[in-house]
Protein backbone atom coordinates (compact mmCIF):
# COMPACT_ATOMS: atom_id res chain seq x y z
CA UNK A 1 0.00 0.00 0.00
CA UNK A 2 2.63 2.45 1.02
CA UNK A 3 4.56 1.95 -2.24
CA UNK A 4 2.10 3.67 -4.51
CA UNK A 5 1.51 6.56 -2.13
CA UNK A 6 2.65 9.83 -3.53
CA UNK A 7 5.81 11.21 -1.95
CA UNK A 8 5.15 14.47 -0.09
CA UNK A 9 8.11 16.77 -0.42
CA UNK A 10 8.77 20.21 0.97
CA UNK A 11 8.46 21.95 -2.38
CA UNK A 12 4.83 20.96 -2.57
CA UNK A 13 4.12 23.50 0.15
CA UNK A 14 3.70 27.09 -0.98
CA UNK A 15 3.57 30.12 1.31
CA UNK A 16 0.26 31.89 1.41
CA UNK A 17 0.86 35.47 0.19
CA UNK A 18 0.57 37.91 3.05
CA UNK A 19 -2.27 40.40 2.82
CA UNK A 20 -1.55 43.96 3.96
CA UNK A 21 -4.53 44.28 6.32
CA UNK A 22 -4.09 40.81 7.79
CA UNK A 23 -0.45 41.47 8.66
CA UNK A 24 -1.48 44.42 10.78
CA UNK A 25 -4.04 42.30 12.58
CA UNK A 26 -1.56 39.57 13.43
CA UNK A 27 1.27 41.92 14.45
CA UNK A 28 -0.93 43.32 17.17
CA UNK A 29 -0.50 41.02 20.12
CA UNK A 30 -3.79 39.50 21.18
CA UNK A 31 -4.73 41.17 24.45
CA UNK A 32 -1.78 40.33 26.69
CA UNK A 33 -2.76 38.53 29.86
CA UNK A 34 0.34 39.53 31.84
CA UNK A 35 0.06 43.18 30.87
CA UNK A 36 -3.54 43.26 32.01
CA UNK A 37 -2.65 41.54 35.23
CA UNK A 38 0.10 44.09 35.91
CA UNK A 39 -2.33 46.96 35.42
CA UNK A 40 -4.79 45.28 37.78
CA UNK A 41 -2.07 44.69 40.35
CA UNK A 42 -0.79 48.27 40.23
CA UNK A 43 -4.31 49.53 40.94
CA UNK A 44 -4.24 47.67 44.27
CA UNK A 45 -2.61 50.11 46.70
CA UNK A 46 -2.01 47.52 49.41
CA UNK A 47 -0.24 45.16 47.03
CA UNK A 48 1.97 47.96 45.70
CA UNK A 49 2.95 49.01 49.22
CA UNK A 50 3.66 45.36 50.03
CA UNK A 51 5.82 44.98 46.94
CA UNK A 52 7.78 48.15 47.75
CA UNK A 53 8.28 47.00 51.36
CA UNK A 54 9.58 43.64 50.18
CA UNK A 55 11.99 45.32 47.77
CA UNK A 56 13.26 47.75 50.44
CA UNK A 57 13.70 44.97 53.02
CA UNK A 58 15.49 42.76 50.48
CA UNK A 59 17.89 45.57 49.57
CA UNK A 60 18.59 46.25 53.25
CA UNK A 61 19.05 42.51 53.86
CA UNK A 62 21.75 42.45 51.21
CA UNK A 63 23.47 45.77 51.88
CA UNK A 64 22.49 46.47 55.50
CA UNK A 65 25.28 44.39 57.03
CA UNK A 66 27.82 46.37 54.96
CA UNK A 67 26.54 49.76 56.01
CA UNK A 68 28.58 50.08 59.18
CA UNK A 69 31.99 48.90 60.34
CA UNK A 70 30.75 45.95 62.44
CA UNK A 71 30.60 42.29 61.51
CA UNK A 72 27.63 40.13 62.52
CA UNK A 73 29.76 37.80 64.65
CA UNK A 74 32.29 40.31 65.97
CA UNK A 75 32.16 40.32 69.76
CA UNK A 76 33.23 43.32 71.83
CA UNK A 77 32.45 43.09 75.52
CA UNK A 78 33.12 46.79 76.04
CA UNK A 79 30.09 47.45 73.84
CA UNK A 80 27.77 44.83 75.36
CA UNK A 81 24.05 45.62 75.76
CA UNK A 82 24.27 49.10 74.27
CA UNK A 83 20.84 50.60 73.69
CA UNK A 84 20.04 51.79 70.17
CA UNK A 85 21.33 55.23 69.16
CA UNK A 86 20.88 56.83 65.78
CA UNK A 87 21.60 60.47 65.04
CA UNK A 88 18.43 62.31 64.06
CA UNK A 89 16.10 59.51 65.22
CA UNK A 90 16.20 60.32 68.96
CA UNK A 91 12.46 61.05 68.92
CA UNK A 92 11.80 57.42 67.95
CA UNK A 93 13.48 56.27 71.14
CA UNK A 94 16.80 55.56 69.44
CA UNK A 95 18.54 57.93 71.85
CA UNK A 96 21.04 55.67 73.56
CA UNK A 97 19.23 55.55 76.92
CA UNK A 98 18.45 52.33 78.73
CA UNK A 99 15.33 51.37 80.71
CA UNK A 100 16.54 53.57 83.62
CA UNK A 101 16.83 56.61 81.32
CA UNK A 102 20.59 56.93 81.66
CA UNK A 103 22.63 57.46 78.56
CA UNK A 104 24.83 54.39 78.43
CA UNK A 105 27.10 55.83 75.78
CA UNK A 106 28.06 58.78 78.03
CA UNK A 107 28.20 56.60 81.11
CA UNK A 108 30.71 54.20 79.55
CA UNK A 109 32.27 56.99 77.45
CA UNK A 110 31.92 55.08 74.20
CA UNK A 111 33.08 57.18 71.31
CA UNK A 112 33.21 54.85 68.28
CA UNK A 113 30.32 54.49 65.86
CA UNK A 114 26.94 54.13 67.65
CA UNK A 115 24.89 50.96 67.34
CA UNK A 116 21.75 51.97 65.44
CA UNK A 117 19.74 49.01 66.71
CA UNK A 118 21.82 48.53 69.87
CA UNK A 119 24.07 45.57 70.67
CA UNK A 120 23.51 42.16 72.23
CA UNK A 121 25.07 40.74 75.38
CA UNK A 122 28.32 39.97 73.58
CA UNK A 123 28.55 43.44 72.08
CA UNK A 124 27.60 42.25 68.60
CA UNK A 125 26.03 45.03 66.57
CA UNK A 126 22.30 44.35 66.20
CA UNK A 127 21.80 46.42 63.04
CA UNK A 128 24.24 44.11 61.29
CA UNK A 129 22.81 41.00 62.90
CA UNK A 130 19.20 41.90 62.17
CA UNK A 131 19.87 42.42 58.46
CA UNK A 132 22.13 39.40 58.27
CA UNK A 133 19.33 37.45 59.97
CA UNK A 134 16.79 38.80 57.51
CA UNK A 135 19.09 37.74 54.69
CA UNK A 136 19.36 34.19 56.04
CA UNK A 137 15.63 33.93 56.76
CA UNK A 138 14.78 35.14 53.27
CA UNK A 139 17.33 32.77 51.76
CA UNK A 140 15.84 29.80 53.63
CA UNK A 141 12.30 30.79 52.68
CA UNK A 142 13.10 31.42 49.01
CA UNK A 143 15.05 28.19 48.62
CA UNK A 144 12.35 26.15 50.33
CA UNK A 145 9.65 27.82 48.24
CA UNK A 146 11.63 27.20 45.06
CA UNK A 147 12.12 23.50 45.87
CA UNK A 148 8.44 23.19 46.78
CA UNK A 149 7.65 24.75 43.43
CA UNK A 150 9.86 22.38 41.42
CA UNK A 151 8.70 19.19 43.15
CA UNK A 152 5.10 20.30 43.33
CA UNK A 153 4.87 21.26 39.66
CA UNK A 154 6.53 18.08 38.45
CA UNK A 155 4.55 15.80 40.77
CA UNK A 156 1.21 17.52 40.26
CA UNK A 157 1.86 17.84 36.53
CA UNK A 158 2.69 14.18 36.02
CA UNK A 159 -0.19 13.05 38.20
CA UNK A 160 -2.77 15.11 36.33
CA UNK A 161 -1.30 14.69 32.86
CA UNK A 162 -1.09 10.91 32.83
CA UNK A 163 -4.21 10.42 34.94
CA UNK A 164 -5.69 6.99 35.46
CA UNK A 165 -3.73 4.54 37.57
CA UNK A 166 -0.70 6.80 37.85
CA UNK A 167 -2.87 9.60 39.18
CA UNK A 168 -4.68 7.26 41.56
CA UNK A 169 -1.46 5.96 43.00
CA UNK A 170 0.19 9.37 43.30
CA UNK A 171 -2.88 10.89 44.92
CA UNK A 172 -3.06 8.12 47.53
CA UNK A 173 0.43 9.16 48.65
CA UNK A 174 -0.62 12.80 48.75
CA UNK A 175 -3.73 11.98 50.73
CA UNK A 176 -1.65 10.28 53.40
CA UNK A 177 0.89 13.12 53.50
CA UNK A 178 -1.83 15.75 53.82
CA UNK A 179 -3.18 13.91 56.84
CA UNK A 180 0.05 14.37 58.76
CA UNK A 181 0.37 17.58 60.77
CA UNK A 182 3.41 18.96 58.95
CA UNK A 183 4.92 20.99 61.74
CA UNK A 184 5.28 17.88 63.88
CA UNK A 185 6.94 16.02 61.01
CA UNK A 186 9.27 18.99 60.46
CA UNK A 187 10.24 18.96 64.13
CA UNK A 188 11.00 15.23 64.00
CA UNK A 189 13.15 15.66 60.90
CA UNK A 190 15.10 18.56 62.39
CA UNK A 191 15.77 16.41 65.43
CA UNK A 192 17.61 13.83 63.32
CA UNK A 193 19.18 16.16 60.82
CA UNK A 194 20.88 18.45 63.38
CA UNK A 195 19.91 22.13 63.20
CA UNK A 196 21.34 24.13 60.31
CA UNK A 197 20.27 25.98 57.20
CA UNK A 198 20.21 22.88 54.96
CA UNK A 199 18.29 20.71 57.39
CA UNK A 200 15.68 23.41 58.00
CA UNK A 201 15.15 23.76 54.25
CA UNK A 202 14.98 19.98 53.74
CA UNK A 203 12.56 19.47 56.59
CA UNK A 204 10.25 22.14 55.25
CA UNK A 205 10.35 20.80 51.70
CA UNK A 206 9.51 17.23 52.79
CA UNK A 207 5.90 18.21 53.41
CA UNK A 208 5.77 21.63 51.77
CA UNK A 209 5.49 20.55 48.14
CA UNK A 210 2.18 18.75 48.67
CA UNK A 211 0.11 21.91 48.59
CA UNK A 212 1.71 23.14 45.37
CA UNK A 213 1.26 19.76 43.70
CA UNK A 214 -2.44 19.73 44.53
CA UNK A 215 -2.95 23.19 43.04
CA UNK A 216 -1.04 22.29 39.88
CA UNK A 217 -2.89 19.00 39.53
CA UNK A 218 -6.28 20.62 39.88
CA UNK A 219 -5.47 23.25 37.28
CA UNK A 220 -3.97 20.84 34.77
CA UNK A 221 -6.92 18.47 35.11
CA UNK A 222 -9.14 21.35 34.02
CA UNK A 223 -6.86 22.41 31.19
CA UNK A 224 -6.01 19.11 29.62
CA UNK A 225 -9.51 18.55 28.25
CA UNK A 226 -9.55 21.87 26.40
CA UNK A 227 -9.37 22.22 22.65
CA UNK A 228 -5.97 23.88 22.37
CA UNK A 229 -4.38 20.88 24.04
CA UNK A 230 -6.23 18.51 21.72
CA UNK A 231 -5.14 20.57 18.73
CA UNK A 232 -1.55 20.53 19.81
CA UNK A 233 -1.73 16.80 20.42
CA UNK A 234 -3.25 16.26 16.98
CA UNK A 235 -0.35 18.16 15.48
CA UNK A 236 1.97 15.61 17.07
CA UNK A 237 3.31 17.48 20.09
CA UNK A 238 5.28 15.28 22.45
CA UNK A 239 4.38 14.88 26.12
CA UNK A 240 7.22 17.19 27.03
CA UNK A 241 6.13 19.90 24.63
CA UNK A 242 2.52 19.70 25.75
CA UNK A 243 3.55 19.93 29.35
CA UNK A 244 6.05 22.77 29.19
CA UNK A 245 4.70 24.76 26.23
CA UNK A 246 0.98 24.56 26.83
CA UNK A 247 0.02 23.31 30.25
CA UNK A 248 2.54 24.79 32.68
CA UNK A 249 2.47 28.35 31.23
CA UNK A 250 -1.29 28.37 31.63
CA UNK A 251 -1.02 27.33 35.26
CA UNK A 252 1.54 30.07 35.98
CA UNK A 253 -1.00 32.38 37.66
CA UNK A 254 -2.09 30.01 40.44
CA UNK A 255 1.52 28.83 40.80
CA UNK A 256 2.76 32.37 41.45
CA UNK A 257 -0.05 33.05 43.90
CA UNK A 258 0.67 29.83 45.81
CA UNK A 259 4.37 30.70 45.83
CA UNK A 260 3.58 34.09 47.35
CA UNK A 261 1.86 32.36 50.24
CA UNK A 262 4.54 29.67 50.57
CA UNK A 263 7.27 32.20 51.27
CA UNK A 264 5.74 33.75 54.42
CA UNK A 265 4.81 30.26 55.64
CA UNK A 266 8.43 29.19 55.27
CA UNK A 267 9.63 32.31 57.10
CA UNK A 268 7.17 31.53 59.87
CA UNK A 269 8.31 27.90 60.15
CA UNK A 270 11.96 28.90 60.31
CA UNK A 271 11.27 31.44 63.04
CA UNK A 272 9.04 28.95 64.86
CA UNK A 273 11.76 26.27 64.85
CA UNK A 274 14.36 28.75 66.05
CA UNK A 275 11.99 29.89 68.75
CA UNK A 276 11.58 26.42 70.24
CA UNK A 277 15.34 25.91 70.10
CA UNK A 278 15.61 23.83 66.93
CA UNK A 279 16.89 26.57 64.66
CA UNK A 280 20.27 27.95 63.71
CA UNK A 281 23.11 28.02 66.19
CA UNK A 282 24.95 31.26 67.10
CA UNK A 283 26.89 33.16 65.85
CA UNK A 284 24.63 32.62 62.83
CA UNK A 285 21.55 34.77 63.01
CA UNK A 286 18.07 34.45 61.59
CA UNK A 287 14.96 36.42 62.42
CA UNK A 288 13.79 33.49 64.54
CA UNK A 289 16.97 33.23 66.63
CA UNK A 290 17.04 37.01 67.09
CA UNK A 291 13.44 37.03 68.29
CA UNK A 292 14.14 34.11 70.61
CA UNK A 293 17.16 35.91 72.01
CA UNK A 294 15.29 39.19 72.31
CA UNK A 295 12.41 37.44 74.01
CA UNK A 296 14.72 36.08 76.72
CA UNK A 297 15.92 39.58 77.58
CA UNK A 298 12.93 41.70 76.68
CA UNK A 299 12.33 42.80 80.25
CA UNK A 300 15.42 44.96 80.39
CA UNK A 301 16.47 45.25 76.74
CA UNK A 302 13.18 45.43 74.85
CA UNK A 303 14.91 46.78 71.72
CA UNK A 304 16.44 43.34 71.17
CA UNK A 305 12.96 41.92 70.59
CA UNK A 306 11.27 44.85 68.93
CA UNK A 307 13.45 45.35 65.83
CA UNK A 308 13.43 41.73 64.57
CA UNK A 309 9.74 41.47 65.53
CA UNK A 310 8.88 44.51 63.41
CA UNK A 311 10.86 43.24 60.45
CA UNK A 312 9.42 39.71 60.47
CA UNK A 313 5.91 41.16 60.80
CA UNK A 314 6.54 43.60 57.95
CA UNK A 315 7.79 40.79 55.70
CA UNK A 316 4.85 38.52 56.51
CA UNK A 317 2.27 41.28 56.06
CA UNK A 318 3.82 42.41 52.78
CA UNK A 319 3.89 38.92 51.28
CA UNK A 320 0.33 38.20 52.37
CA UNK A 321 -0.99 41.48 50.97
CA UNK A 322 0.98 41.06 47.75
CA UNK A 323 -0.28 37.49 47.48
CA UNK A 324 -3.88 38.66 47.86
CA UNK A 325 -3.30 41.35 45.27
CA UNK A 326 -1.71 38.91 42.83
CA UNK A 327 -4.57 36.48 43.27
CA UNK A 328 -7.10 39.15 42.44
CA UNK A 329 -5.00 40.38 39.51
CA UNK A 330 -4.11 37.00 38.01
CA UNK A 331 -7.29 35.10 38.54
CA UNK A 332 -10.41 36.89 39.70
CA UNK A 333 -12.16 33.52 39.83
CA UNK A 334 -9.85 32.23 42.56
CA UNK A 335 -10.90 35.05 44.86
CA UNK A 336 -12.04 33.87 48.29
Amino acid sequence: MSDNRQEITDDLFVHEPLEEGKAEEIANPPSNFWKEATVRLLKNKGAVIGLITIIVISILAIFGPLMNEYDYREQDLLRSNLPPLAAGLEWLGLDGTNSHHTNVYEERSITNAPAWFGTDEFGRDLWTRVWKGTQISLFIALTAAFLDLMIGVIYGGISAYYGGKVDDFMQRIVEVLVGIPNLILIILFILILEPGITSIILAMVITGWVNMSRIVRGQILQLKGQEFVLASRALGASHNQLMWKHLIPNVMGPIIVTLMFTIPTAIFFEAFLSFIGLGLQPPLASLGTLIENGYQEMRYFSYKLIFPAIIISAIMISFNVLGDGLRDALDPKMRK
Partner: protein
Amino acid sequence: MLKFILQRLGYMAITLLIIITITFFLMQLLPGTPFSNPEKLSDRQIEIMNEKYGLDKPLAIQYFTYLGNLLQGDLGISFQSQGRTVNAMIAERIGPSALIGGQGVVIGLVLGLILGIISALKHNTIFDYGSVFVAVLGMSIPSFVFAALMQYFIGVKWGLLPAALWKDYSYSIMPSLALSVLVTATVARFIRSEMLEVLGQDYVNTARAKGIKEFSVIIRHVLRNALIPVVTVLGPLAVSIMTGTLVIEKIFAVPGLGEQFTLSILVNDYSVIMGITLFYSALFIFVIFLVDILYGILDPRISIGGGKKDVR
Protein backbone atom coordinates in the same frame (compact mmCIF):
# COMPACT_ATOMS: atom_id res chain seq x y z
CA MET B 1 -23.14 8.42 53.62
CA LEU B 2 -22.26 5.26 55.56
CA LYS B 3 -19.97 4.14 52.75
CA PHE B 4 -18.25 7.52 52.83
CA ILE B 5 -17.73 7.36 56.59
CA LEU B 6 -16.33 3.82 56.42
CA GLN B 7 -14.00 4.77 53.58
CA ARG B 8 -12.75 7.77 55.50
CA LEU B 9 -12.25 5.66 58.62
CA GLY B 10 -10.13 3.29 56.55
CA TYR B 11 -8.01 6.17 55.33
CA MET B 12 -7.64 7.47 58.85
CA ALA B 13 -6.34 4.11 60.02
CA ILE B 14 -3.80 3.92 57.18
CA THR B 15 -2.59 7.47 57.75
CA LEU B 16 -2.22 6.82 61.44
CA LEU B 17 -0.29 3.60 60.84
CA ILE B 18 2.08 5.43 58.52
CA ILE B 19 2.57 8.21 61.06
CA ILE B 20 3.31 5.62 63.75
CA THR B 21 5.84 3.93 61.49
CA ILE B 22 7.55 7.17 60.47
CA THR B 23 7.70 8.40 64.06
CA PHE B 24 9.06 5.10 65.31
CA PHE B 25 11.86 4.83 62.77
CA LEU B 26 12.76 8.53 62.94
CA MET B 27 13.17 8.14 66.67
CA GLN B 28 15.58 5.27 66.06
CA LEU B 29 17.72 7.53 63.89
CA LEU B 30 18.09 10.12 66.60
CA PRO B 31 21.61 10.61 67.88
CA GLY B 32 22.08 9.10 71.32
CA THR B 33 19.82 6.94 73.43
CA PRO B 34 18.09 8.20 76.54
CA PHE B 35 20.65 6.38 78.68
CA SER B 36 23.82 7.25 76.83
CA ASN B 37 25.04 9.73 79.39
CA PRO B 38 28.27 8.08 80.68
CA GLU B 39 28.80 10.68 83.38
CA LYS B 40 25.64 9.77 85.24
CA LEU B 41 25.37 6.06 84.55
CA SER B 42 27.80 3.15 84.62
CA ASP B 43 27.97 0.65 81.75
CA ARG B 44 26.12 -1.91 83.84
CA GLN B 45 23.36 0.55 84.66
CA ILE B 46 22.95 1.46 80.98
CA GLU B 47 22.70 -2.23 80.16
CA ILE B 48 20.03 -2.80 82.78
CA MET B 49 18.06 0.19 81.59
CA ASN B 50 18.25 -0.90 77.94
CA GLU B 51 17.07 -4.34 78.93
CA LYS B 52 14.23 -2.98 81.02
CA TYR B 53 12.87 -0.84 78.18
CA GLY B 54 13.48 -3.46 75.51
CA LEU B 55 16.02 -1.32 73.68
CA ASP B 56 18.37 -4.30 73.28
CA LYS B 57 15.88 -6.28 71.18
CA PRO B 58 15.97 -6.22 67.38
CA LEU B 59 14.24 -3.24 65.79
CA ALA B 60 11.45 -5.28 64.23
CA ILE B 61 10.47 -6.76 67.57
CA GLN B 62 10.57 -3.33 69.21
CA TYR B 63 8.31 -2.03 66.45
CA PHE B 64 5.70 -4.74 66.79
CA THR B 65 5.77 -4.58 70.56
CA TYR B 66 5.11 -0.87 70.24
CA LEU B 67 2.26 -1.42 67.77
CA GLY B 68 0.72 -4.06 70.01
CA ASN B 69 0.85 -1.77 73.02
CA LEU B 70 -0.66 1.08 71.00
CA LEU B 71 -3.60 -1.10 70.01
CA GLN B 72 -4.34 -1.49 73.68
CA GLY B 73 -4.13 2.27 74.10
CA ASP B 74 -0.80 2.10 75.90
CA LEU B 75 1.70 4.73 74.79
CA GLY B 76 4.55 3.36 76.91
CA ILE B 77 6.65 4.65 79.77
CA SER B 78 8.63 7.86 79.94
CA PHE B 79 12.38 7.24 79.71
CA GLN B 80 13.26 10.29 81.72
CA SER B 81 10.74 10.68 84.52
CA GLN B 82 11.00 7.53 86.59
CA GLY B 83 8.19 5.07 86.08
CA ARG B 84 5.63 7.54 84.70
CA THR B 85 3.44 6.34 81.86
CA VAL B 86 3.04 8.54 78.81
CA ASN B 87 -0.73 8.16 79.10
CA ALA B 88 -0.65 9.62 82.58
CA MET B 89 1.59 12.50 81.47
CA ILE B 90 -0.73 13.38 78.60
CA ALA B 91 -3.81 13.06 80.80
CA GLU B 92 -2.25 15.35 83.38
CA ARG B 93 -1.23 18.02 80.89
CA ILE B 94 -4.14 18.01 78.48
CA GLY B 95 -6.27 20.16 80.81
CA PRO B 96 -4.49 23.52 80.52
CA SER B 97 -3.93 23.01 76.78
CA ALA B 98 -7.58 22.21 76.19
CA LEU B 99 -8.63 25.20 78.27
CA ILE B 100 -6.51 27.79 76.47
CA GLY B 101 -7.16 26.12 73.10
CA GLY B 102 -10.91 26.04 73.64
CA GLN B 103 -11.02 29.61 74.91
CA GLY B 104 -8.83 30.69 72.00
CA VAL B 105 -11.25 29.18 69.49
CA VAL B 106 -14.32 30.69 71.17
CA ILE B 107 -12.80 34.17 71.48
CA GLY B 108 -11.54 33.96 67.91
CA LEU B 109 -14.88 32.83 66.51
CA VAL B 110 -16.80 35.57 68.29
CA LEU B 111 -14.38 38.37 67.41
CA GLY B 112 -13.97 37.05 63.88
CA LEU B 113 -17.73 36.91 63.36
CA ILE B 114 -18.17 40.47 64.61
CA LEU B 115 -15.35 41.83 62.45
CA GLY B 116 -16.47 39.87 59.40
CA ILE B 117 -20.11 40.93 59.67
CA ILE B 118 -19.20 44.60 60.15
CA SER B 119 -16.85 44.35 57.19
CA ALA B 120 -19.45 42.84 54.89
CA LEU B 121 -22.36 45.06 55.91
CA LYS B 122 -20.28 48.24 55.71
CA HIS B 123 -18.54 47.10 52.54
CA ASN B 124 -16.01 49.61 51.17
CA THR B 125 -16.25 51.96 54.11
CA ILE B 126 -13.66 52.88 56.70
CA PHE B 127 -15.04 50.08 58.97
CA ASP B 128 -14.47 47.54 56.23
CA TYR B 129 -10.92 48.69 55.58
CA GLY B 130 -10.25 48.78 59.31
CA SER B 131 -11.30 45.21 59.94
CA VAL B 132 -9.60 43.92 56.80
CA PHE B 133 -6.42 45.57 58.04
CA VAL B 134 -6.80 43.98 61.48
CA ALA B 135 -7.41 40.61 59.82
CA VAL B 136 -4.28 40.93 57.67
CA LEU B 137 -2.23 41.82 60.74
CA GLY B 138 -3.64 38.83 62.61
CA MET B 139 -2.93 36.45 59.73
CA SER B 140 0.60 37.73 59.22
CA ILE B 141 2.18 38.40 62.58
CA PRO B 142 3.56 35.12 63.97
CA SER B 143 1.66 34.08 67.10
CA PHE B 144 4.79 33.89 69.22
CA VAL B 145 5.85 37.41 68.26
CA PHE B 146 2.40 38.61 69.19
CA ALA B 147 2.48 36.62 72.43
CA ALA B 148 5.91 37.95 73.39
CA LEU B 149 4.84 41.55 72.75
CA MET B 150 1.60 40.99 74.70
CA GLN B 151 3.54 39.55 77.59
CA TYR B 152 5.90 42.51 77.56
CA PHE B 153 3.28 45.25 77.36
CA ILE B 154 0.18 43.84 79.07
CA GLY B 155 1.97 41.60 81.53
CA VAL B 156 5.22 43.34 82.43
CA LYS B 157 4.91 47.02 81.58
CA TRP B 158 1.28 47.75 82.42
CA GLY B 159 0.73 44.81 84.79
CA LEU B 160 -2.89 44.28 83.67
CA LEU B 161 -2.74 40.48 83.59
CA PRO B 162 -0.33 37.96 85.08
CA ALA B 163 2.65 37.67 82.70
CA ALA B 164 3.28 33.94 83.08
CA LEU B 165 2.77 30.77 85.14
CA TRP B 166 -0.47 28.97 85.95
CA LYS B 167 -2.16 29.63 89.25
CA ASP B 168 -5.76 30.69 88.86
CA TYR B 169 -8.13 31.41 86.00
CA SER B 170 -6.71 34.85 85.20
CA TYR B 171 -3.49 33.14 84.11
CA SER B 172 -5.29 31.52 81.20
CA ILE B 173 -6.55 34.78 79.66
CA MET B 174 -3.41 36.01 77.93
CA PRO B 175 -2.43 32.64 76.39
CA SER B 176 -6.01 32.25 75.11
CA LEU B 177 -5.95 35.75 73.61
CA ALA B 178 -2.62 35.06 71.94
CA LEU B 179 -4.02 31.84 70.44
CA SER B 180 -7.22 33.54 69.29
CA VAL B 181 -5.48 36.07 67.03
CA LEU B 182 -5.10 33.77 64.05
CA VAL B 183 -8.62 32.37 64.49
CA THR B 184 -10.10 35.87 64.60
CA ALA B 185 -8.27 36.89 61.44
CA THR B 186 -9.12 33.75 59.47
CA VAL B 187 -12.78 33.72 60.46
CA ALA B 188 -13.18 37.46 59.81
CA ARG B 189 -11.77 37.18 56.30
CA PHE B 190 -13.84 34.14 55.52
CA ILE B 191 -17.13 35.49 56.87
CA ARG B 192 -16.57 38.73 55.00
CA SER B 193 -16.12 37.14 51.59
CA GLU B 194 -18.88 34.57 52.13
CA MET B 195 -21.35 37.20 53.29
CA LEU B 196 -20.53 39.49 50.39
CA GLU B 197 -21.27 36.60 48.07
CA VAL B 198 -24.53 35.66 49.78
CA LEU B 199 -25.67 39.31 49.91
CA GLY B 200 -25.65 39.35 46.12
CA GLN B 201 -27.88 36.28 45.80
CA ASP B 202 -31.43 36.45 44.49
CA TYR B 203 -33.00 34.84 47.52
CA VAL B 204 -31.76 37.71 49.69
CA ASN B 205 -33.50 40.18 47.40
CA THR B 206 -36.61 38.00 47.50
CA ALA B 207 -36.55 38.00 51.27
CA ARG B 208 -36.21 41.77 51.32
CA ALA B 209 -38.95 42.17 48.73
CA LYS B 210 -41.26 40.11 50.92
CA GLY B 211 -40.87 42.85 53.50
CA ILE B 212 -38.87 40.90 56.06
CA LYS B 213 -37.04 43.19 58.46
CA GLU B 214 -33.41 43.85 57.47
CA PHE B 215 -32.19 42.40 60.77
CA SER B 216 -33.85 39.03 60.22
CA VAL B 217 -32.75 39.00 56.58
CA ILE B 218 -29.17 39.33 57.75
CA ILE B 219 -29.46 36.77 60.54
CA ARG B 220 -31.75 34.19 58.96
CA HIS B 221 -30.87 34.36 55.32
CA VAL B 222 -27.41 35.80 54.95
CA LEU B 223 -25.52 34.72 58.03
CA ARG B 224 -26.90 31.21 58.12
CA ASN B 225 -25.77 30.51 54.60
CA ALA B 226 -22.47 32.32 55.02
CA LEU B 227 -21.62 30.29 58.10
CA ILE B 228 -21.70 26.90 56.38
CA PRO B 229 -18.40 27.19 54.49
CA VAL B 230 -16.74 28.45 57.68
CA VAL B 231 -16.87 24.85 58.87
CA THR B 232 -14.18 24.05 56.29
CA VAL B 233 -11.63 26.36 57.94
CA LEU B 234 -12.19 24.77 61.33
CA GLY B 235 -9.89 21.85 60.44
CA PRO B 236 -6.85 23.94 59.51
CA LEU B 237 -7.61 26.24 62.44
CA ALA B 238 -7.57 23.33 64.87
CA VAL B 239 -4.11 22.46 63.58
CA SER B 240 -2.80 25.97 63.98
CA ILE B 241 -4.22 26.10 67.49
CA MET B 242 -2.39 22.86 68.30
CA THR B 243 0.93 24.04 66.90
CA GLY B 244 0.29 27.43 68.47
CA THR B 245 0.12 25.84 71.90
CA LEU B 246 3.70 24.57 71.43
CA VAL B 247 5.14 28.09 71.55
CA ILE B 248 2.42 29.91 73.46
CA GLU B 249 2.72 27.47 76.36
CA LYS B 250 6.46 27.92 76.33
CA ILE B 251 6.13 31.71 76.47
CA PHE B 252 3.52 31.84 79.21
CA ALA B 253 4.90 28.83 81.14
CA VAL B 254 1.57 27.00 80.89
CA PRO B 255 1.95 23.41 82.14
CA GLY B 256 0.26 21.94 79.04
CA LEU B 257 0.95 19.34 76.41
CA GLY B 258 2.89 21.70 74.14
CA GLU B 259 5.29 22.63 76.90
CA GLN B 260 5.83 18.94 77.68
CA PHE B 261 6.57 18.32 74.00
CA THR B 262 9.25 21.02 73.74
CA LEU B 263 10.67 19.86 77.06
CA SER B 264 10.86 16.22 75.94
CA ILE B 265 12.67 17.24 72.76
CA LEU B 266 15.37 18.89 74.85
CA VAL B 267 15.92 15.83 77.07
CA ASN B 268 15.57 13.14 74.35
CA ASP B 269 12.57 11.52 75.96
CA TYR B 270 11.65 9.31 72.97
CA SER B 271 8.53 7.67 74.21
CA VAL B 272 6.98 10.95 75.30
CA ILE B 273 7.81 12.66 71.99
CA MET B 274 6.30 9.71 70.12
CA GLY B 275 3.27 9.61 72.38
CA ILE B 276 2.50 13.30 72.01
CA THR B 277 3.15 13.23 68.26
CA LEU B 278 0.69 10.39 67.84
CA PHE B 279 -1.81 12.04 70.12
CA TYR B 280 -1.66 15.29 68.13
CA SER B 281 -1.84 13.44 64.82
CA ALA B 282 -4.81 11.33 65.86
CA LEU B 283 -6.61 14.41 67.13
CA PHE B 284 -5.84 16.25 63.90
CA ILE B 285 -7.05 13.43 61.68
CA PHE B 286 -10.19 13.06 63.75
CA VAL B 287 -10.97 16.79 63.54
CA ILE B 288 -10.60 16.77 59.75
CA PHE B 289 -12.91 13.75 59.59
CA LEU B 290 -15.53 15.45 61.76
CA VAL B 291 -15.34 18.62 59.68
CA ASP B 292 -15.93 16.68 56.46
CA ILE B 293 -18.98 14.92 57.85
CA LEU B 294 -20.35 18.09 59.46
CA TYR B 295 -20.00 19.91 56.17
CA GLY B 296 -21.93 17.22 54.37
CA ILE B 297 -24.74 17.38 56.92
CA LEU B 298 -24.93 21.18 56.99
CA ASP B 299 -24.87 21.78 53.26
CA PRO B 300 -27.13 19.42 51.33
CA ARG B 301 -25.75 20.83 48.08
CA ILE B 302 -22.51 18.98 48.75
CA SER B 303 -22.77 15.33 47.86
CA ILE B 304 -20.25 13.35 49.81
CA GLY B 305 -21.67 9.92 49.10
CA GLY B 306 -19.98 9.90 45.71
CA GLY B 307 -23.35 10.23 43.99
CA LYS B 308 -24.22 11.74 40.65
CA LYS B 309 -23.04 15.23 41.51
CA ASP B 310 -19.53 14.04 42.26
CA VAL B 311 -17.85 14.80 38.97
CA ARG B 312 -14.17 14.21 38.98
